[in-house]
């Protein structure tokens, strides 16, 4: 794997549409295809919505209704920070006795970062802590809805025309009796009866049951076309000479946060509800199953000084995250390997198979556990600690140039697919079979030391 600040030191090769090399922290594993997948070759889907400030999970139907905005949290229109609700006590007359005044709580919104308050835009204080704040409506909503209705009527007509044309074309191919489809169309729209009657010789036996829908008045929605104006209001005379109060003029970003209004003056900037974030779920494109994080990791432990053409030993660690014993073989890349394009050093990997013990969660607490005996070759294996193993590889930098020394090799290990469904089999098969996976790994070992 890689350390937090240097994510690209150990790269794995992914065979997708493009060959991508990236660190294990950004890769996923499809256990049905048994292949590594990167973010590019998976399909992303929206899983759930949540608010980033109150962390409330919203069901997707509600999110759609609220336009993906949280009901309780607001954003400051000036600096986009989250607003907090503050309360003050104001004297207010008691409902039953107007002459006496009592302290009542009034709530307003305030930004802790830029000191903006809801009183700046003229929003009155509310008597409830949450739920009282409304966003202003777009004044053009009615007109736009009318336009949409009018065009929907036109669209319906076009669809009818299109269906009618399809029908007309199909007539030579169709039997005399009308198909279910035609009757359905006719029943639904009523105009069909008129059409059928106009064509001479059309068999209308199947339509005898339908009543004449000619009298039915389809409500025609007519729209007033927009009126154009002769004159446009000019800028006021003092616009040219009055000094600008720059904090009062909104910046582009502030304006564009409110697409419906885009106010030029800061006194019209109303707060908006906070936008939600989503959790994504990733699916393998080939088998449509969800993915899991890949776990088998190679880590670079220590690197000695790398000198040109001098052999040195690099210590690597391998961690086994599953509970069963895993066998790992390392194979160096051959000459002319098409995947081996980045390595600048020759590497000699241990030829023997390395065995890793399973992860035992109780091992830390179990003092009496006997250490497993693996008979390690001290030249190859540096240390062994529960499910971790440290081993040496020999590196000979081949090129004397600036830049990192890169080595690559293939790592081959067995993998048991524990999540595969257990199929009832006639023969006595082992429930989980081990399959061998091979990955191409590239390590970036750092620059040469002269």
């Amino acid at each position, binding site marked *: 794997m890689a350390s937090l600040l240097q994510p690209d030191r150990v790269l794995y090769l992914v065979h997708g549409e493009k060959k991508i090399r990236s660190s294990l922290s950004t890769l996923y594993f499809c256990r049905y295809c048994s292949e590594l997948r990167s973010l590019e070759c998976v*399909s992303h889907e*929206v899983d759930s919505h949540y608010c980033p400030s109150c962390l409330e999970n919203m069901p997707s139907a509600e999110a759609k209704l609220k336009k993906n905005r949280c009901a309780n949290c607001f954003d400051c229109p000036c600096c986009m920070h989250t607003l907090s609700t503050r309360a003050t006590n104001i004297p207010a007359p008691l409902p039953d006795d107007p002459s006496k005044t009592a302290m009542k709580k009034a709530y307003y919104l305030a930004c802790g970062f830029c000191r903006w308050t809801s009183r700046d835009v003229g929003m009155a204080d509310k008597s409830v802590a949450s739920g009282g704040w409304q966003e202003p409506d777009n004044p*053009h909503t009615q007109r736009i809805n009318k336009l949409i209705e009018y065009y929907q009527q036109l669209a319906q007509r076009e*669809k009818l025309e299109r269906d009618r044309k399809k029908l007309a074309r199909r007539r030579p191919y169709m039997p005399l009796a009308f198909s279910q489809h035609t009757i359905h169309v006719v029943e639904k729209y009523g105009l069909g009866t008129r059409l059928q009657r106009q064509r001479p010789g059309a068999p209308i036996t199947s339509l005898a049951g339908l009543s004449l829908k000619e009298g039915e008045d389809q409500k025609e929605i007519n729209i*007033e076309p927009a009126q154009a104006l002769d004159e446009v209001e000019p800028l006021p005379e003092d616009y040219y000479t009055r000094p*600008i109060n720059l904090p009062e003029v909104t*910046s582009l970003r502030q304006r564009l946060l409110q697409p*419906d209004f885009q106010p030029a003056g800061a006194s019209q900037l109303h707060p908006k509800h906070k936008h939600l974030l989503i959790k994504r779920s990733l699916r393998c494109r080939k088998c449509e199953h969800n993915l899991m994080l890949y776990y088998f990791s190679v880590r670079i432990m220590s690197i000695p000084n790398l000198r040109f053409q001098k052999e040195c030993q690099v210590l690597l660690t391998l961690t086994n995250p599953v509970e069963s014993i895993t066998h790992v073989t390392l194979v160096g890349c051959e000459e002319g390997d098409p995947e081996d394009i980045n390595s600048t050093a020759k590497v000699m990997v241990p030829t023997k198979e390395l065995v890793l013990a399973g992860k035992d969660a109780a091992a830390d607490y179990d003092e009496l556990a006997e250490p497993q005996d693996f008979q390690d070759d001290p030249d190859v294996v540096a240390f062994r600690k529960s499910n971790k193993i440290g081993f040496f590889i020999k590196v000979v930098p081949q090129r004397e140039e600036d830049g990192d020394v890169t080595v690559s090799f293939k790592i081959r290990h067995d993998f048991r697919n524990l999540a595969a469904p257990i199929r009832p089999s006639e023969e006595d098969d082992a429930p989980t079979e081990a399959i061998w996976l091979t990955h191409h790994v590239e390590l970036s070992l750092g620059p040469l030391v002269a």
Partner: protein
Amino acid sequence: MPLFEGLGSGGEKTAVVIDLGAAYTKCGFAGETGPRFIIPSEIQKPGQQQSIKVVQYNINTEELYSNLKEFIHMLYFRHLLVNPRDRRVVIIESILCPSHFRETLTKVFFKQFEVPSVLFAPSHLMAIMSLGINSGLVMDCGYTETLVLPVYECIPILPAWEALPLGGKAIHKELDGLLVEQCTVDSDSSTGQSLPTYIHIDPLMLFVLSCCPVRTCFISDLQRGLKIQEAKFNLGGTAERPTPPPDVDYPLDGEKILHIKGPIRDSVMEMLFEQDNEEKSVASLVLDALVKCPIDTRKALSENLVIIGGTAMLPGFLHRLLAEIRLLVEKPKYRDALATKSFRLHSPPAKPNCTAWLGGAIFGALQDILGSRSVSRDYYNQTGRIPDWCCLSSPPPESVYDAGKTPPPLMKRAFSTEK
């Protein structure tokens, strides 16, 4: 009003409407009154401070593909928060968009995000739709250019298009030049520094500066504007410049303050209306387009001017534009050619930068025909390309599905009875 908001008739989900502009992208859902988000058309690569513009026509396909992919990914999963696979897409585009860009964009949508269908809607036509009229002369004042296209009875009169590269980009360039030349920056440690020392260090400063013309500059009316132009070109002459507006102290960040000189504030926008050697300005585009239109259409078009685009939102723009058009129409070049002298301006039910988007949203809400007018994923997979108005060799969608004609060899039986 539908009872269940968000559910279309028949249960199909509302389409996604995206207007990919050179400077800003407007995205949202069909049937709504305004875009959900207006975001800059840029992506941020990790490790790089400078953001990369998404709408570039000159980069190679690979890079464009990955830029677009990242941008659309961000649109869907950060802003729209929906699954791309479920909803049709309406893309508002300019008719002058290069085919290469369109093809790459389509490929991103179909191959990477697997959307069901894509519809490319021309922005000028959509602007007409947002008004409920059938004809109009639409002028789109955007970032890279100003493009005029007349639309008569819902059909764009393509030969009459006119364009000039006078838009937000040109204004920024002019303003930057003037600021560097004439203005100074004060900071805690020093005063009177010139501007370039700061711009190159911090891209954030560039972003702050990009708001500068919007907040401080404006467009004077005709008389004042003409006097400013005379004073500019008549160096040392008798023409006197009208009183400049006061200076502005523009804070660049917590420490630095840019002193913007007053004369810059009203003169930078004059470049939109200054006529260059060919006597072209933003106003003359309208008249040139009118001249190219058939005579019978001219009256309807001149009385239905529609101005859209972000640059048209500058204070004083519309008033000045109308005045300039009326002035120019008296010039000998146009006086004899155009009989119509009346010009009327529409005010669409949305801000000028969202009008084209709104038209697209209205069209996207027509679920009866959106499907038949879009390019579906099946069609794209079979033909591998998207139809373009300038390319006649793409087969129309109907012929692909026609049961009567001989189908191309790759096609499987696609015509099915609708239920």
